[in-house]
């Protein structure tokens, strides 16, 4: 056990620091130790940065990556810890936009723009408005106080730890093979990348071709499911002629 911890302290340290930060920030009545939480959070981010920094590319790209990544992480933490649900929805929008920026950096402009249109443009706006209209008489009890802060944060960070551990395993293997730790493709999906010409990588053309050749069944099934959901919604919606609207 102790040997495992000493072996993986660089993975465990940021997780622990981050957990303390989020745990401190969780809404629990009027008193919050923001300063302390901020120190822990910054320490956690720095610890992540030193161990998990992607292979450094051009300076500008690194700056953008770090900015977007930090925006996404900080926005995510603030999203789940903010008292005000409207601000929480706005932090969610910031997280989405930051993730879109990361997509752009990884030459996936289509994914980035589609995410902005669908998530930031439509879903979060609707979401935001429902929240803004629902909170007429101040924030409710469940907004001022988290119900199980310790358990919730612990399970969340446990999940994150598992995720990072598996990623680290891959990254370690790829690094050992002399490849790029963060562009390693999991086994079984290499066939799909092979159908795309290298110069087309990331362009709209290749995305479309990949969607309608490699993933045609998935796309069709997803489309059918959405169609069924739409028809169901129309069937369940009240009808004017039946007098229930």
């Amino acid at each position, binding site marked *: 056990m102790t040997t495992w911890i000493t072996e993986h302290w660089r993975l465990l340290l940021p997780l622990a620091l981050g957990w303390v930060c989020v745990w401190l920030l969780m809404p629990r009545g009027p008193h919050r130790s923001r300063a302390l939480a901020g120190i822990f959070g910054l320490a956690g981010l720095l610890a992540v940065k030193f161990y998990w920094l992607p292979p450094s590319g051009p300076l500008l790209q690194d700056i953008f990556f770090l900015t977007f990544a930090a925006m996404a992480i900080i926005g995510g933490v603030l999203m789940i810890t903010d008292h005000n649900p*409207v601000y929480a929805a706005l932090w969610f929008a910031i997280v989405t936009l930051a993730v879109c920026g990361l997509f752009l950096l990884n030459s996936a*402009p289509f994914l980035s723009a589609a995410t902005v*249109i669908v998530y930031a443009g*439509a879903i979060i706006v*609707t979401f935001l*408005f429902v929240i803004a209209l629902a909170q007429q008489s101040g924030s409710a009890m469940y907004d001022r106080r988290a119900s199980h802060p310790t358990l919730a944060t612990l399970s969340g960070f446990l999940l994150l730890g598992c995720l990072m551990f598996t990623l680290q395993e891959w990254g370690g293997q790829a690094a050992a093979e002399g490849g790029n730790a963060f562009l390693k493709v999991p086994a079984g999906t290499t066939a799909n990348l092979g159908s795309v010409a290298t110069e087309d990588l990331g362009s709209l053309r290749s995305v479309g071709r990949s969607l309608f050749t490699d993933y045609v069944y998935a796309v069709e099934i997803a489309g059918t499911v959405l169609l069924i959901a739409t028809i169901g919604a129309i069937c369940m919606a009240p009808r004017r002629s039946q007098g229930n609207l």
Partner: protein
Amino acid sequence: MTLNDWIILLLAMAIPMHVILGACAYLILLERKLSAWMQDRVGPNRAGPMGLLQPLADGIKFILKEEMMPGHINKFLYVLAPGITCFTALFAFAVVPYGPTSSEPGVFPFIIAPNVDLGLLFLFAVGSLNVYGIILGGWASNNKYSALGALRASAQVVSYEIPLGMSVLGVILLAGSMNIETIMNQQIEHGFMGWNIWYQPLAALLFFTAAMAESNRLPFDLAECEQELVGGFHTEYSSMKFAMFALGEYVHITTLGFVLSCLYFGGWHFPWIATAESAYPGAWAVKVLVLLTKVFAVLVLIQLLRWTIPRFRFDQLMGLAWKVMIPLATVNVLMVMCFKQFGWDPMWMLPGSLAIFICAGVVGVQSARSGRSLAAAA
């Protein structure tokens, strides 16, 4: 990049931005004058000859006016909202060509960001962020009128994004690209009969309508109708922050005018005076002027429509989007797909579009009659 390239890049950014901001001020004057003429009035005529200095006077007034901040607002979001509106409206202009574009180094590009593969998708993505300005402004004002206006705006913009996107899909399929420059240049290569309006007239109509709804212009300005909502989301705004909302709206319709001209009306192309072959000295200026004339015509049409059609009721607005425009746009895309798949002559797209339009009209008449007979039976 050499120093020369940097200068060209900066100019390509700075010139359109400043021209647009100045043009918007004069578009507001034009709108006031046009509406005055339509209503048999004189319009603003005090500042300068024929009121030509009115935008300047307005600007001075907006800047010098007292900065009103109501006490019951959410300050941060209240200040942020007009900024978002202005920023997204100007940001969307990055992929819009404003002249004979080129991506060669050392040549003035006539577009801020040349060769963006995303093109239209970028435009829609940034345009969809525009609604944040309205919704945050409406909510942060802590005023029921503003909240209602913002609610209407968000529902409207989210609904009209779908026909807006679907109506350009036909053009995208025809050109095989989402890049506005590519779409424009392909039309120009085929001359006057290559303009997309001859192949996609229905889509152009849908795009124009959806674009007006998207930018909250009359007759779709339910978010800010004065009679019911005292001004909607900007009820609590004054001075420069109010001006920024108005500026955002005007930049938005200007951008949409450019996009409409470039997608459906051949961009800077005009028979005989500005074609792909014309290389006489000063041709670029003529090309820019042709494009600007087209944009100006679109803007004047929008302003004429403002005083022609009364404002929609909200259920009519939603009905128009979901029951009329989205099915029509879908059928139009299907038609283009059939033409592409079976290699039919694209000249038949014009009668095809007309046929779709007539079918929609017949279906509308029939469904209205059967709906009435159903209601009578009930």
